[in-house]
């Protein structure tokens, strides 16, 4: 039992020495913007889009940028707190789940603006970007209802957060317009990064008869695309980014959030001192939310359906606040 007793003081001494040696660290000058994502930026969707936005903030605004991935609530709060303590001007908490942590941290750091993408409400220096992606998911549903042969469609969600649920509900409602009585099935994976679970869920939906799928599951959706590629006669609608490249012959269209555009716009406002905390909501009318049809799969549906999609898109955009 003697060894550990020697190890612990040694570690503590080393830590104290390091604290003296490397106090501070990192640059403190310039306009600095940070991004905290809830998962890997290799998801080809939600997190990748935000990371691309961060790159544009660096290139267009000359900002010093930093990114970190934080999966658990504890890590998320720690990441927000660390960036704020280091004097970052803007910290993006990339997802609904950051709202509570940002509100706790923001009270101690009034000089940092916290932007919660897909957030909920304004609290002091915490402000949300709301993406009405469900408007595009509704269009996907319209097309899916016309496309399904079996009359069964499937949706794979990550965690059952309000924006995810809204996307599902709009998708199902859209499909019911073009295919009355359509059977809408869904699965929530309870995470956003287990691609194997995404693939299993997609296969389960396909076994239940679903031949057209949609998702909102970030990196886990890579498994959904795999399942579609593995099963002839199935189609998929992408989400969050234009995902046609993930299955070029089978992706009909994608419900897209132009995250770089939204992120760059907010960061620019803060840099120029024009930012006021408010709920900034983006729908189809803004151009930040888009419905991107994959040209290679366009022939899967008759022009009359695409014309309907365009009509509904225009009416949603016109009705936007």
């Amino acid at each position, binding site marked *: *039992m*003697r*060894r*550990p*007793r*020697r*190890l*612990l003081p040694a*570690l503590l001494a*080393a*830590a104290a020495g*390091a*604290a003296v040696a*490397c*106090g501070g*660290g*990192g640059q403190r000058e310039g306009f600095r913007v*940070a991004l905290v994502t809830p998962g*890997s930026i290799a998801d080809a969707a939600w997190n990748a889009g935000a990371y691309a936005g961060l790159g544009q903030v660096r290139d267009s605004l000359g900002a010093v940028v*930093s*990114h*970190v*991935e*934080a*999966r*658990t*609530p*504890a*890590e998320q709060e*720690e*990441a927000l*707190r*660390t*960036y704020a*303590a280091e004097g970052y001007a803007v910290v993006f908490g990339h997802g*609904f*789940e950051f709202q*509570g942590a940002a509100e706790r941290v923001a009270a101690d750091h009034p000089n940092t603006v916290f932007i919660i993408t897909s957030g*909920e409400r304004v609290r002091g220096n915490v402000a949300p970007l709301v993406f009405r992606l469900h408007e595009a998911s509704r269009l996907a549903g319209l097309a899916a209802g016309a496309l399904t042969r079996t009359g069964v469609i499937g949706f794979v969600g990550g*965690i*059952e*957060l*309000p924006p995810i649920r809204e996307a599902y509900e709009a998708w199902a409602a859209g499909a019911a317009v073009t295919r009355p009585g359509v059977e809408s099935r869904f699965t929530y994976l*309870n*995470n956003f990064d287990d691609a194997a679970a995404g693939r299993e869920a997609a296969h389960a939906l396909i076994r239940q008869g679903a031949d057209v799928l949609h998702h909102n599951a970030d990196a886990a959706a890579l498994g959904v695309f795999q399942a579609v590629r593995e099963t002839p006669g199935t189609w998929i609608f992408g989400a969050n980014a234009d995902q046609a490249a993930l299955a070029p012959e089978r992706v009909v269209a994608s419900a897209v959030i132009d995250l770089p555009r939204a992120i760059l716009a907010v960061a620019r406002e803060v840099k120029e001192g024009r930012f006021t905390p408010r709920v900034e909501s983006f729908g189809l009318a803004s151009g930040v939310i888009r419905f991107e049809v994959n040209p290679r799969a366009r022939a899967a549906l008759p022009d009359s359906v695409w014309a309907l999609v365009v009509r509904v898109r225009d009416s949603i955009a016109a009705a936007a606040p």
Partner: protein
Amino acid sequence: MSAPSTFDLRPLTTSALALAAGLVLLAAGLAAAGHDPAAALGAMWRGAFGSWYAFTSATLLRATPLIVIGLGFALALRGGALNIGAEGQFYAGAIAATWAAFQLGALPAPLAIPLTWLAALAGGALWVLVPVVLKRRFGVLEVISTLLLNFVAEALVSLMVQGPMQEPAGIYPQSAPIPAAARLPLLPGTRLHAGFLVALALAAAMAFLLARTVWGFRLRAAGAAPRAAELIGRVDAGRFAGVALLASGAIAGLAGALEVSGVSYALYQNLSPGYGFTAIAVALLARGHPLGIVASGILFGALEAGAGAMQREAGVPSVTVYVVEAVVILAVLLADARGRSTPAVAGA
């Protein structure tokens, strides 16, 4: 997993060499991938030990559940059982503690907090009770049963935060914040909670129990050589393994309570970034020694805290730190296996 109590520096040297090997391999990998290894490792060091705040609020905060769960794993291991289900027991404890916190929120903190701990200990023990019974009655390997119950526990948390324990507005998949009386005090100016002291006290208690008490001696005997303990010492080795497994589950449950009442203040689905599995590595690196687990827990806490800083400052994905952790474990296991005449077989 023998317990050399003689003065022997070799295992410590092995661990240090294993860590060095892991870091060198990481540096090589970073260089190969086009990153600056010095900048990355420097950022890692600063993130873990660079300031009092980083050391307490990042390193020690992460180390706390690793130490507590690691101690539980080691206790089971010493008693001859392999508890791979700490992740599930952690969640069972977190559910129980959250539930208790809402029932007891009106009590004063000195009363409410220990009671939430009791609830969590019970929750963790309950979660491992089925594997214990299966093992004692039917000889079902606890490695399998405890592992599988992890998935059940995760599903149960999902059910809880979307059903009976969801916050009142019914929007977020999480519980309401627990009452202030059930929250652990923080070290001023940091995010480190009193749970770290609990971890230290538990380590001291376990060191005493194993090294200085007859019960601890019997437990170690039952775990190290069950047949011999039964024949010579008239020790019921199976019973000791069962008790050790139960205690181990209870301790993992306690870690869940500390995380809820010290860090998250609410029940979430992804409360743990895999503490229950990392803690196995923590315990193995320390070879099951309670005080060694404190040190290796802090080391792993530092690695994961440093990983965050490495990503923030040097743009290196934080998951690369798992390379270091894996190399450390493999190197230690390899060294141990080489140091024995027979292959290392842990547990029963």
